[in-house]
């Protein structure tokens, strides 16, 4: 970015906002004090150097970076699988990949994209930015956070090692029993799937708990509920959804499917009184919210980006917050629309049709709000905005086919066909990946301190958006022409060849786009232009600290006087002081009004999260091979927890804040 960066004078109305900390004395901080504090804080907060420090790191930014990096690798892996599948399908009766390999590929592709890429990367974005955006020193539970990452990493490794030794799951990412049950899936392929899902659930739950507590208890003074950035609102909504959705799939996969397979329970055995449909209900009770777990954070990205580049505060903050929450709520009431072809009574189906249509409303509200924001603002067409336009082009299409799919009669025709494949790729790529790329372009400077190349970015954007649409638009027709999904080949007489060829060409274009991005990121990581603290002249607290953000995030906790702190108040922001610099301390504020409440001693680096993740991995992976591993694993896990707990107990310390915190104005 070459645009000149200018400090804006504090907005009059924002300054006039009432003091959030009654009784606090405004003082001024000299530069020397700030520099000294920064040096002391760096000593206190930085992760230890060396391999040990690397293994014991708990800085939320470090962990989130690893998360994002790993998840993006998974995106590439999933993309390679997709490309292979597109190669196989590019012409009829192709023999490039046989059915056994193909079935593993599409299963691993789906599982990777949903469990190992989309959910982790979306929550990881939250883990990186939520503390920064709410002006916190750190995340609420840094060790839990690290544990979550390592657990997720174990899942990733397990899945891909398995795939390479021909043990990749092969019953679809939905793994419907009885196909995924012990009789029809011998060996351990499906067990791998069930346990990988478990790994990612644990990781997601750890992240969700962290985001919720960080948001509700660690906001900067003054950031009352109605000033929380929409990005954070989206993350919080999703965190709650994770807490309600993930246990469902944990029950289904770990408890029911895995025990059916390992110890011969009969959850899904219709002969002995089990029920194959039970799985589908539980799975989709998780599976449908899952889509929104991926999609809602993306809406948070979009709001930040649209606001920044439209140069206008977003229209309808309250409406968007409510829309977010409504979406999260309704997302749990739609699952049956994945099951319209099953023998479920028609009245029940109708209710879910209605619910599926209703959920279009809150999404519509958000889209309309952004449109109005863009209309009444002064948009700049950066790469990030280009991706946002890609979002409008692609996602709205997918959303509308989604509304069509809510119709039972129509859904029964195109359910499980390439029409649905087209639909959800439009939704997920348009509503998830494109905003994610926009976010990469937007926040890359904050994470690395350097700008991504806009020129390469435009290549990336156009190639990707065009590629995706060329790849998936023809699939609508394929589906309507009768092509079921999850087929490894098709006959020439079906006439599906040319459109498949076209789709493959589209996939190649999209892959090129991603390749351009990888090149861009690789070059810019070390060689991009320096970004400075706030290259886009955006408004959030994350831009109120240097790029990349220091280990302690902020030298002094900023004070928030409006929804758009940097626009409202200008930089530098007022801050509170009084947190100790010689040990890790965070400021805990009240849930609603974010009044300073207490100072918490904050955990330091620890090896226990890694240890615990390892022993729990042993438990889950071992349980595939023998149920006894559960016992052994439980013992080890208990030991791991004990070690972790003892370390925490030793360090436990809470102090109430009375007058320790002060609001000061920066010099």
């Amino acid at each position, binding site marked *: 970015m070459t645009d000149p960066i200018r400090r804006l004078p504090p907005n009059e109305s924002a300054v006039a906002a009432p003091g959030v900390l009654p009784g606090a004395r405004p003082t001024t901080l000299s530069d020397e004090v700030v520099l000294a504090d920064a040096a002391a804080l760096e000593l206190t907060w930085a992760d230890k150097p060396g391999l040990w420090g690397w293994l014991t790191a708990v800085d939320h930014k470090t962990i989130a970076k690893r998360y994002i990096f790993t998840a993006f690798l998974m995106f590439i892996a999933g993309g390679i699988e997709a490309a292979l599948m597109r190669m196989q399908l590019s012409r009829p009766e192709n023999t490039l990949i046989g059915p056994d390999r193909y079935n593993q590929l599409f299963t691993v592709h789906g599982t990777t994209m949903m469990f190992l890429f989309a959910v982790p990367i979306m929550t990881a974005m939250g883990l990186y930015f939520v503390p920064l955006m709410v002006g916190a020193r750190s995340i609420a539970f840094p060790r839990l956070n690290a544990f979550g990452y390592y657990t997720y990493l174990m899942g990733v*490794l397990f899945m891909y*090692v398995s795939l390479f*030794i*021909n043990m990749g799951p092969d019953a679809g990412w939905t793994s419907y029993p009885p196909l995924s049950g012990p009789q029809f899936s011998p060996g*351990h392929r499906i067990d791998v799937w069930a346990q990988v899902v478990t790994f990612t659930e644990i990781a997601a739950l750890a992240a969700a708990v962290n985001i919720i507590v960080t948001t509700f208890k660690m906001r900067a003074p003054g950031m009352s509920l109605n000033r929380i950035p929409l990005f954070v609102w989206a993350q919080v909504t999703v965190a709650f959804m994770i807490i309600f959705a993930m246990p469902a799939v944990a029950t289904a996969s770990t408890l029911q499917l895995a025990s059916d397979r390992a110890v011969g329970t009969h959850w899904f055995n219709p002969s002995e009184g089990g029920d194959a449909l039970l799985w589908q209900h539980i799975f989709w009770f998780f599976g449908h919210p899952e889509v929104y777990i991926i999609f809602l954070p993306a809406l948070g990205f979009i709001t930040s980006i649209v606001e920044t580049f439209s140069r206008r505060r977003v229209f309808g903050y309250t409406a968007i917050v409510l829309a977010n929450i409504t979406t999260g709520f309704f997302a749990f009431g739609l699952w049956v629309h994945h099951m319209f072809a099953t023998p479920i009574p028609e009245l029940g189906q109708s209710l879910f049709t209605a619910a599926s249509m209703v959920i279009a409303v809150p999404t519509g509200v958000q889209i309309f709000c952004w449109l109005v924001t863009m209309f009444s603002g002064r948009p700049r067409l950066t790469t990030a905005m280009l991706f946002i336009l890609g979002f409008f082009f692609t996602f709205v299409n997918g959303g509308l086919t989604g509304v069509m799919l809510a119709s039972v009669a129509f859904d029964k025709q195109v359910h499980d066909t390439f029409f649905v494949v087209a639909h959800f790729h439009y939704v997920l790529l348009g509503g998830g990946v494109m905003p994610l790329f926009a976010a990469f372009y937007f926040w890359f400077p904050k994470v690395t301190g350097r700008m991504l190349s806009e020129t390469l970015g435009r290549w990336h954007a156009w190639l990707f958006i065009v590629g995706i649409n060329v790849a998936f638009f023809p699939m609508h027709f394929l589906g309507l022409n009768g092509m079921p999904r999850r087929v490894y080949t098709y006959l020439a007489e079906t006439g599906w060849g040319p459109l498949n060829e076209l789709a493959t060409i589209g996939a190649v274009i999209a892959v090129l786009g991603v390749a351009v991005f990888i090149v861009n990121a690789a070059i810019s990581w070390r060689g991009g232009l320096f970004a400075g603290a706030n290259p886009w002249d955006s408004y959030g607290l994350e831009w109120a600290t240097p790029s990349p953000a220091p280990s302690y995030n902020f030298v002094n906790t900023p004070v928030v006087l409006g929804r758009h702190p940097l626009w409202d108040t200008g930089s530098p922001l007022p801050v509170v002081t009084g947190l100790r610099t010689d040990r890790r301390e965070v400021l805990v504020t009240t849930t609603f009004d974010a009044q300073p409440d207490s100072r918490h001693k904050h955990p330091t680096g620890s090896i226990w999260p890694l240890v615990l993740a390892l022993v729990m991995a042993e438990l889950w992976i071992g349980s595939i091979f023998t149920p006894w591993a559960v016992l052994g694993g439980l013992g080890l896990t208990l030991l791991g927890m004990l070690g972790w707990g003892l370390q925490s107990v030793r360090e436990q310390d809470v102090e109430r804040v009375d007058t320790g915190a002060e609001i000061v104005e920066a010099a």
Partner: protein
Amino acid sequence: MSSRSNGWRATCSALIGILLLSACERENRRFQENPPTATPTSTALIVSDLQPGPGMVIPKVEAPYDDNAWAVSEGKSLFNSMNCSGCHFQGGGGIGPPLMDEEWIYGYEPQQIFASIADGRPNGMPAWKYSLSTQQIWELVSYVRSLSGLNPKGARSGRDDHMMRKTPEASTPNAVPKMSSTPPEDSA
């Protein structure tokens, strides 16, 4: 960051890799292959423990599918669809002798079981040579062996989607096979 990560990632992968190396064979699904050439020789027909002369060694033929979960499960489905289960049930026996216990009348070595299936046995066991392919018989051999735990545990079947009739093979304790003294009720 990544250079350091490579170190322990590689270690970790290697560990898991070693653990799961056997998976390669276990998870293979060889739909199309030439039937294993290892059709049993006449040694398969030896059912006596008593061999004349010192130091005679009966050559063993490895079961090609003992370690292959898919083939064992195909064997299980053949065991039921080809009516083996009509006489042997799920290994407990009925018309035919039990297959899940430690006693073997005509031998438990893969080639002996192969011969029992292919050539039949005099007391009511039909000869399946002309109704089943060699590959199918080998699949059955491995499934039959799995009934009493003679093949690796990971390749054995879990419960099926039917009535719970017994502990699944995957959880059946391994039996130590031995030859039973005589075929019961051999004709006078």
